[in-house]
Structure formats: structure tokens, C-alpha cells
């Protein structure tokens, strides 16, 4: 009985994993370059921003909420960081810390409003989205590029660390190219989220609140602090994504990441997390983002194929997964 239960719980995740591998193999057969190391590493380095935001979104959705402000927060963080470094000549490290704190603060405020005034998360984070996007454009209407030499160093950090450990130059450069700082940060964010959700009391509280807030409160779960923390984490992740954006593009852009919030919700759902909360995992989110990355990379490699197909394929996959989840929930 318990085994059956476990299979059902893991069912959506397993199917996501199978789809992910099948897509990869299919793309590889059509386009043999796909099996190369640089393409696989490109999944991560090109989608680091996306992965970080989706990881933050997983917390919010698991707790039964939703956060529409993440794309705007990421854009706002990127432009704020670029302006602080270039125009106000702040030390990059301070600027990054400042921006991250800002993201956590915005998220925490929204969480506070949602919890204390019983406002729907949808509307509050929608307001947050308008505010963050407006703030981004108020800071600067054009994108600002970063010329700070320290940034190049941060970008190359993994390679320099390897060199310091005595790895020879060519190998270090190759690894640094495949795994820039952006990818390392994304992996770190993912692992941190994994540990938090699977191994800490806070993680269990998030699942409990998502499953049923009332029962969670009756069991003594601190609903207020957990909910505020969840939105603060999401805001912090969005700001981190903005920082990573500047690390890989060397510029901040107020008009970037427009549909990011909805894409990341889609990735989380494809990863088997229920939008009603309580069930899901951050591993699924990683798989969801990878599916996105495979489709996008394949479509860019096929010249002459309209890029609109990405959205259509993702939409169809989303539909398939939603129907699948529906079928699984019904059978229970």
C-alpha cells in the first residue's frame, strides 16, 4: 500500500523525467551536435536566470501561493545593480548585497500584506510587479552596460579557482567556459532549495501550509513567518537572478524578463508541482526548466523554424501535464 502511494507521489516526477530524457534523445538524433558537452552546459548557463527564479517560485507554489512579481523584480535588480556600479561607483560586492536585500525586502513586504490582511497573493504580487517594473524604468529607461573590471573576474571565478588549485591552464579555461559563475550560482541556489525543502523544519512547514493552511496552524506551524519567508525567498531569488543576468550579459536592462513569471510557473507545473500547493519538489522544477532549455536550444539550432514554436510546444506540454495531474488526482 505504501509502495503504491509512493509511486503515485513520484508518478508525475518520473513522467517529467522520462519526457525530459526522451526529448533530449530525440533532439540528439535529429541534431547530433546535441550530445556535445558545450550544448549541455549551455542549457544551464543560458537558463541560469530562469532556473533561479523557478526555484524561488517553487517555494511560493508549494505554500499554495503565487508570485507574479519575479520577472519585474529580476529586471529591477539588474538595472539597479548596473546603475549603482556604473553611475554611483559603488563597490560591486556591496551593490550586490544591497540589491539582494532589496529583493528579500520587497518579497517579505508582499508576504506580510498577503498574510496579515488576507489579500489574494495574485493581486498583491501583481501590484508588486507593477511597482518593481515601474521602479526599474524610473532608475533608467535604457539598458546600462557594466565596464567594471572586477566583473570580468567574477565571471571567470571558477576558472581562476581551478588554476589556483594547480589545474593546468587549458583545462581550467575549458571548464570555466562550460561552467561560468552564473551556472555555479544557479546550481548552488538549486541545492540550497533542495536541502531547505527536504531536510529542514522550515521546508516541512512550507509543505504543511500548502497542503492545508488551517490544519497546519492547528498543528502549531507558524503560518505568518513561514508565508512571509516564502515570499522573501522568492523575492531574493528574483534579485539573485537579476544579479546573474548582469554577470552573464554585463548589463542591466529594465525591459528584460517580461514573461518570466509565467514561464517559471509553467516550468514548476511541468515539474509536477501542484498549483494548489502541498505537493511537488524542486527537482521537478529543475527538470521543467531543462525541458524548456532543450526545446529552446533545439529550435534555435534549426534555422528557418519559427521561434514561436517554443511557446506552442511548451503550452502543449503544459496542457499534457495538467491533464495527467488531473487524472492522477482523480484516481486517488
Amino acid at each position: 500500500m505504501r509502495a503504491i502511494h509512493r509511486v503515485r507521489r513520484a508518478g508525475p516526477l518520473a513522467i517529467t523525467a522520462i519526457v525530459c530524457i526522451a526529448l533530449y534523445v530525440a533532439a540528439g538524433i535529429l541534431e547530433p551536435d546535441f550530445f556535445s558537452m558545450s550544448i549541455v552546459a549551455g542549457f544551464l548557463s543560458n537558463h541560469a536566470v530562469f532556473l533561479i527564479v523557478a526555484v524561488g517560485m517553487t517555494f511560493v507554489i508549494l505554500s499554495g501561493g503565487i508570485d507574479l512579481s519575479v520577472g519585474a523584480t529580476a529586471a529591477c535588480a539588474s538595472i539597479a545593480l548596473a546603475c549603482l556600479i556604473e553611475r554611483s561607483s559603488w563597490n560591486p560586492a556591496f551593490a550586490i548585497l544591497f540589491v539582494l536585500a532589496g529583493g528579500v525586502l520587497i518579497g517579505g513586504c508582499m508576504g506580510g500584506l498577503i498574510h496579515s490582511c488576507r489579500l489574494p497573493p495574485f493581486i498583491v504580487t501583481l501590484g508588486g510587479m507593477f511597482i518593481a517594473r515601474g521602479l526599474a524604468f524610473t532608475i533608467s529607461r535604457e539598458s546600462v552596460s557594466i565596464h567594471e573590471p572586477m566583473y570580468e573576474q567574477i565571471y571567470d571565478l571558477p576558472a581562476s579557482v581551478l588554476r589556483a588549485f594547480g589545474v593546468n591552464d587549458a583545462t581550467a579555461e575549458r571548464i570555466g567556459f562550460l561552467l561560468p559563475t552564473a551556472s555555479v550560482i544557479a546550481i548552488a541556489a538549486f541545492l540550497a532549495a533542495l536541502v531547505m525543502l527536504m531536510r529542514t523544519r522550515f521546508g516541512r512547514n512550507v509543505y504543511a501550509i500548502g497542503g492545508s493552511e488551517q490544519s497546519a496552524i492547528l498543528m502549531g506551524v507558524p503560518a505568518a513567518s513561514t508565508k512571509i519567508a516564502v515570499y522573501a525567498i522568492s523575492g531574493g531569488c528574483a534579485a539573485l537572478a537579476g544579479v546573474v543576468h548582469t554577470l552573464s550579459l554585463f548589463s542591466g536592462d529594465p525591459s528584460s524578463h517580461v514573461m518570466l513569471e509565467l514561464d517559471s510557473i509553467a516550468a514548476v507545473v511541468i515539474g509536477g508541482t501542484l498549483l494548489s500547493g502541498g505537493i511537488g519538489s524542486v527537482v521537478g522544477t529543475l527538470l521543467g526548466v531543462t525541458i524548456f532549455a532543450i526545446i529552446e536550444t533545439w529550435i534555435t539550432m534549426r534555422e528557418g523554424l519559427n521561434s514561436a514554436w517554443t511557446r506552442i510546444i511548451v503550452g502543449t506540454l503544459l496542457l499534457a501535464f495538467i491533464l495527467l495531474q488531473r487524472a492522477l488526482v482523480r484516481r486517488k
Partner: protein
Amino acid sequence: MRSVVAMSRSFGVTMDSRVAWPFAALVALLVFNLVFSSDFLTFQVRDGRLYGGLVDIFENAAPLILVAAGVAIVIGTGGIDLSVGSVMAISGTVAAGMIARPEYSVFNNVGFGGSILPAISLAIVTAGIAGLLNGTLVGILGVQPLMATLVLMVAGRGVAQLLSDGQIITFREPAMDFLGSGAWLGLPVAIWISLCGVVFVAVIVRVTAIGFLAEAIGDNRTAAALSGVPVRPLVMFAYVITGLLAGVAGILVVCDIGAADSIRAGRDKELDAILAVVLGGTTLSGGRFSILGAVIGALLIQTLTTTILAQGIVEDSARLVKGGVVIAICLLQSDRFRSGVTRAWKWRRSSTS
């Protein structure tokens, strides 16, 4: 607030207090404009058409009013529709493509073309099919509305881009120009279309029992089903109506600018529409909806945008103000916030006296 309600009663208009709040906000904004921008309330008649600040607001809000009216019904049934922006993009692209028939797009080979009536009908039918898809997912398969409509929101814009091959379809067609910027009986045609659409839907919903039953579904779906309410057809009806209204709104936008931009058309409209409905006093939890409130909410959003722009703030920064106002109005509507403020106020008074 009671006085506003009483006042509106004395004018023969019955309004529940939830519509009264946004209405008061709208009036306050209009008064603000009246005081701070000089040429706001001037009306001019040129070439048999009325011009002026209020007319502009109404004309610019026309697509949003249509969409918001539909979304209000969907929210009333306890659902939500995120796909309206994408549906607008699809219907606009279909209408423009059928008329212009550009070589690069699939419309080049469509057999009947050129004339405006089949183009517009096909666009609206396409939008209706999109609504039907949402309705089937939510009503029959029982998928969560947020997820079900997210599918079409993500995929729909891709479909629009595919149909137009990612290009902006431009056209010159006098009949479409008339719909977009012409005037009839002194008012812009767009206003007439949106008014007709909203009144038509309001009559269908409120003269028959459809609206009442939809609210019953939103309040408690199981109870409604057990009491014999035809839940599935009604839920499907709500989404189809919203799709059709979004289709008309998409055509209005295309006619207004004389081009179909599959990427920008209707972008953020889904969020604006939900906002309009919520500002109009309809709660997202469903069970009650007000089409009049949604119209007032849409006008409120447009007036706010116009006001901010009139104060010399650039459009991109205007969102900052918009976001603040959204949260403020939501706080005012929150019972918990209001009782908290009242309690704090009483506590302060009792401690000072």
C-alpha cells in the same frame, strides 16, 4: 460612503457598497484631473464628432471594458482567465491577416478574402473556439482555472506569432479605419461597440438566471451541482463569452492602430482585466460578480493612466503609481485591514482622552 450610496439611490441608481468604493475613487480621480489639468473637461465638436478628455478615456478603455466584463463573469463562477491577452492577439492577427493577406503568412492562400465581414467573423469565431478550449478544460475536465488558462496564455501568443510569421501585419481598409477611429452619432465607434457588447452580455446574464446560477457555482460548486444547477454548460458559457469579448477587443485594437502586432497586442491585458474586475468590487474568490463594477474598474485604470501621463510622468514609470494604487485599493477592500485601522484609531482615541 453611505452618503454616496444614498445619493446614487436618490438618482434612481441602486448600487451596492462594493461598487460605490471604486465609483468614489473614479470620481475623485476625475475631480483631481479637473483641478490640475486645465483642458480636461473641455468638449469640442469637430466634423460631427465629440472630442475631449472624457471621450478619450472612454475610447481608450473600450477594449479593456469588453475584456473585463467577460472576466468578471468567469471570476464570478470561481474561475479566472489568464488567456484573454493572447486571445486578443490571435483574433487581431486573424482579422488583419484575412484583410491584408500578406505573402509571408498563411493567410496568403486563404480562398475567400479581401472583404471585411468574413475576416471579422472568422476572427471572432477563432476567439470563441479559444474560449471553448478553456471552458472544456475547466468545466468538463475539472482542471484548475489558473492552470487551464495559463496553457492558452503561453501557447496562444505563439499561435498568433506563427500565423503572422512574427511580423507586424499592416493594412489599409476604410471599413476597419471606421471601426477604429470613426464616429457615429457624435461618439467614437469603439465606444459604441464596447457599450453594445457590455450591455448585451449584462442583459443575457442578469435578465435570465444565468448570472445568478453562475454565482451559485462560484459560491459552492458541489452544492450548486447537487441543487440541479447545470454546472458544466454554465462554466463553459462563461469562458466562451469571455473569449468572444476578447476577440472583439482584439479587433478593436487592430482597427485602432491599423496593424496587428502579435507580440505586443493585448500584452498585460489579462492582468489589467483582472485588476479592473477586482477594483470593481468583485472578489477573486468568486460567488459574486458585478459587470457594472468591472466597467467602472476599467474606466478607473484608464483614468489613472491618463492622469499619470497628464502629470508629465513617462508611461514606463507610470506603473509605479499604478502598483501603489492597486495595493492601496485592495487594502481598503480588505475587511481585516479596515477593522485593524478602526481598532488602532479607537485605541489611540481612548488612550489620549
